[in-house]
């Protein structure tokens, strides 16, 4: 099976029961195609400049966004081409194939997260189990952890928006420990993107990691880490142990309480600002959030990561596209998803074109 079919099988789950208006705060799918080809060209240029095609994921993971984030970009890149096909096909191919290879190398057991998002070896998991300062969970503390995830997740949703969430929130696992026990690791790698927001809206801590062991809860991760789906016992009733680490320090329950309050207030404040923005300002913010995903890579390649003048000119005083992706319609099947998002078209017009021709001997 080609990677795009594997991708499609998994990515279509994101839209099950979902209408496109559910994604906030902008109609992203009618916005990105206005300028995405320019960004794709910049990414292709950075990949080439750093010779990343010859490098394994393990050598370059420090300059790439998390795996879920790469998946989320693919789900924007492909429909952007469908909405506004460009001549820039080689760059689309190079970037899409590069992302697919990175995902296969980083998460070989489930690259497109059909069911899970495993990123750690058995030895690393063993180290977590033996070295972490675990707390015994009860209903009250498990509920508090749920509230922390809600507050941190909502903060990320504001800092990065609904379709860049995965840059600030990934979940790894589920890792089976015993027949009925699993470990989930929730990672908020950067709650202080100072290039996007002023200091007073940023969290006081940059990184939060939440480790939780559950019993008799069946977890599934669907396409991106934060899409956790549970079955069986409630996660609150099923949580047996937990630990929260912020900027390297393990937290006590009162410190966790403080984080819930702080993140809730800041999530609310940021989103109030977003809701107040006029259309022109909102378009520029969303463009900047999108470009920020490759800041580390572009910094390494000595390319400015911020939106270029050409990108900005494409959207300035321009309305969003209309009528390409359906509003108010539930996308229920893989077939519908593939048609609406142009999966077959992308495979035909991009991935199957420009095959390398062997040199004539």
């Amino acid at each position: 099976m080609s990677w795009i079919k594997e991708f499609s099988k998994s990515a279509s789950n994101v839209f099950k029961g979902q209408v496109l208006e559910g994604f906030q705060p902008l109609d992203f799918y009618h916005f990105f195609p206005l300028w995405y080809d320019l960004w794709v060209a910049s990414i292709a240029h950075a990949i080439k400049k750093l010779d990343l095609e010859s490098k394994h994921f393990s050598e370059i993971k420090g300059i790439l966004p998390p795996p879920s984030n790469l998946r989320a970009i693919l789900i924007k890149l492909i429909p952007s081409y469908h909405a506004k096909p460009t001549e820039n096909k080689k760059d689309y191919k190079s970037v899409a194939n590069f992302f697919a290879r990175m995902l296969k190398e980083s998460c070989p057991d489930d690259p497109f997260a059909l069911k899970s998002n495993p990123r750690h070896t058995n030895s690393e998991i063993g180290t977590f189990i033996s070295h972490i300062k675990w707390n015994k969970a009860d209903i009250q503390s498990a509920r508090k952890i749920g509230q922390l995830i809600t507050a941190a997740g909502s903060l990320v949703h504001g800092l990065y928006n609904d379709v860049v969430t995965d840059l600030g929130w990934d979940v790894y696992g589920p890792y089976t420990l015993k027949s009925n026990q699993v470990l989930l690791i929730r990672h908020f790698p950067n709650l202080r993107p100072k290039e996007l927001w002023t200091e007073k809206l940023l969290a006081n801590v940059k990184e939060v990691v939440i480790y939780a062991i559950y019993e008799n809860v069946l977890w599934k991760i669907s396409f991106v880490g934060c899409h956790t789906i549970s079955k069986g016992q409630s996660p609150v009733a099923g949580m047996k142990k937990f630990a929260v680490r912020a900027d390297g320090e393990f937290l006590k329950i009162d410190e966790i309480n403080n984080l819930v309050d702080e993140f809730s207030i800041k999530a609310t404040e940021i989103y109030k600002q977003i809701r107040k923005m006029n259309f022109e300002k909102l378009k520029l913010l969303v463009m900047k959030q999108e470009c920020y995903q490759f800041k580390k890579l572009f910094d390494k390649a000595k390319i400015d990561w911020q939106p270029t003048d050409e990108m900005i000119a494409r959207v300035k005083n321009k309305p969003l596209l209309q009528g390409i992706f359906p509003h108010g319609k539930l996308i229920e099947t893989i077939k519908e998803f593939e048609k609406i998002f142009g999966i077959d078209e992308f495979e035909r017009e991009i991935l199957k074109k420009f095959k390398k021709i062997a040199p004539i001997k």
Partner: protein
Amino acid sequence: MAKILLTGMGASPGNIEGTARLFYSGDDPSSFEEGNILVTTITDPTMVTAMVRAAAIITDIGGITSHPAILSREMGIPCVVNTKEATQKIKNGMRIRVDGQKGKVYVLD
């Protein structure tokens, strides 16, 4: 006797009875009482303080991996999404029951 009011998508299991509170983006979260059932079009981060106080969440739109669905599961509270008309059919103060497994909302009064 409970009468079925709405059917949507069960996004987080659990059964709970409580008082409905319509709540929208930008509403004052301090006015949301602990244990009320949050009813909205779709949640957003301005509602986070209300969400952590809610006994259940009901939305007009959204799927199994939408913002309210994911966070309700994490907090272990029932959630029904994609009811299409919760904000029209449910009134403030209405006593309702939420079945987050079956995706049904019942009126108790």
